[in-house]
């Protein structure tokens, strides 16, 4: 005997079901504006329906989790299913990123659009192979040239934000909060020089 299912049928639920369908079909995070255009609804109503879905598709409650990422909304697998996913699938985009690739990615993420010579100037080594690898993975893409004859510039992609779980560039920590200050470095250099001289 089939168990009886209670179907809630109010306008917000109907909208929520349509949004679920759109997010399942999409291969990328969908911004609220795009969801509103596809459903022919006000963005405010779409946000209400998304809030309903956030409650339904959350960790511990569902195998699928709704998350706001890369400037839009997308489904992902629940963390509980990670081991099973790992047995069946691979992650070629993020697997084995070298130190050189991560540093290049950081420069592009903060300074993009940025050219290869500019990256080389900051890192002190040629960035050609690192950039080529990042473009192949889809984490970085060409972003035109500053001048007609200038070098090609690069920017990070929506896939980069998705892989690193960022809703947008604003999620990156401030550069000023990272690394060390020039003063601190200088003091350390002088300190080492003083000890050697002593």
């Amino acid at each position, binding site marked *: 005997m089939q168990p009886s299912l209670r179907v809630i049928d109010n306008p917000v639920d109907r909208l929520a079901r349509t949004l679920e369908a759109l997010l399942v079909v999409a291969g*990328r995070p969908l911004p609220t504006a795009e969801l509103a255009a596809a459903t022919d609804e006000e963005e405010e109503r779409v946000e209400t329906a998304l809030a309903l879905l956030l409650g339904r598709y959350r960790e511990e409650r569902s195998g699928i989790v709704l998350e706001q990422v890369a400037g839009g909304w997308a489904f992902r697998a629940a963390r509980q299913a990670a081991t099973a996913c790992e047995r069946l699938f691979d992650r070629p985009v993020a697997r084995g990123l070298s130190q050189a690739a991560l540093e290049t990615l950081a420069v592009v993420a903060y300074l993009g659009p940025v050219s290869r010579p500019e990256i080389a100037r900051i890192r002190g080594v*040629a960035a050609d192979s690192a950039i080529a690898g990042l473009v192949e993975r889809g984490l970085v893409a060409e972003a035109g040239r500053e001048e007609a004859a200038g070098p090609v510039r690069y920017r990070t992609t929506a896939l980069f934000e*998705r892989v690193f779980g960022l809703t947008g560039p604003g999620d990156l920590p401030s550069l000023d909060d990272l*690394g060390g200050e*020039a003063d601190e470095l*200088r003091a350390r250099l002088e300190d080492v020089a003083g000890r050697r001289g002593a």
Partner: protein
Amino acid sequence: MSAAAVRDLDLDLEAFEGPFDLLLTLVLREELELVDVDVAEVVVAFVERLAERADPDLDACGEFLVLVAALLELKVRELFPDAEVEELDPEDAAEELAERLAVYRRFRAAAAWLEQRLADRGDRWFRVGPAPLAPTPAPPRLPPQEPARLAEAIRRLAAEPPAPSLHHLGAFPPVSRFLERFRTLLGRRHRFVFDREVEGLARVEQAVAFLALLELRHAGEVALSQPAPFAPIVCSPASA
């Protein structure tokens, strides 16, 4: 560590693996692109070796500094071949070095942050697929048309085109006429002058007569001679 030992310093870099001395040799022979060599890693390897000793060897340090400085200068020239070299005094150089190191350290820390972020999200899986195709927009609709105008347009297109004029073809006499005439001449005389035979004919007739003459030459029935360009063409039977 002696000064000689600096050259034996074992390196394990992304672009090179082996002793420092070999690295220098390959760079000088231009068999290794210096832009691919992470000089900072060379320095780190040296400092690690230095740290293993209780007393630093000043000779070794001095030699290493000279070699690394030379490497760096070569690398700068390779990276920025067109840049003008600006001599800095030691204080400015230290200042600039500290600034650059600070900038680099920030990006290195940003890379570490990204790496940690990736590790933290290792248990989050999602589908990476191609972007869905946007629906093809409907073709633009034409404004309402008058059927009578459409019928008129089709009628004009379907009308029989006027017959092509063949008038110019009538102006050409048949080649056979001249073939027969020249064969008769060749039978009667040992030789004749072509120009004289076509004298007074229209230009088209002269052209067709010349064509007939070429046909006879091709068939081996006539021998042609012309003492100079544009001189009269003399014709005689081929066997003669």
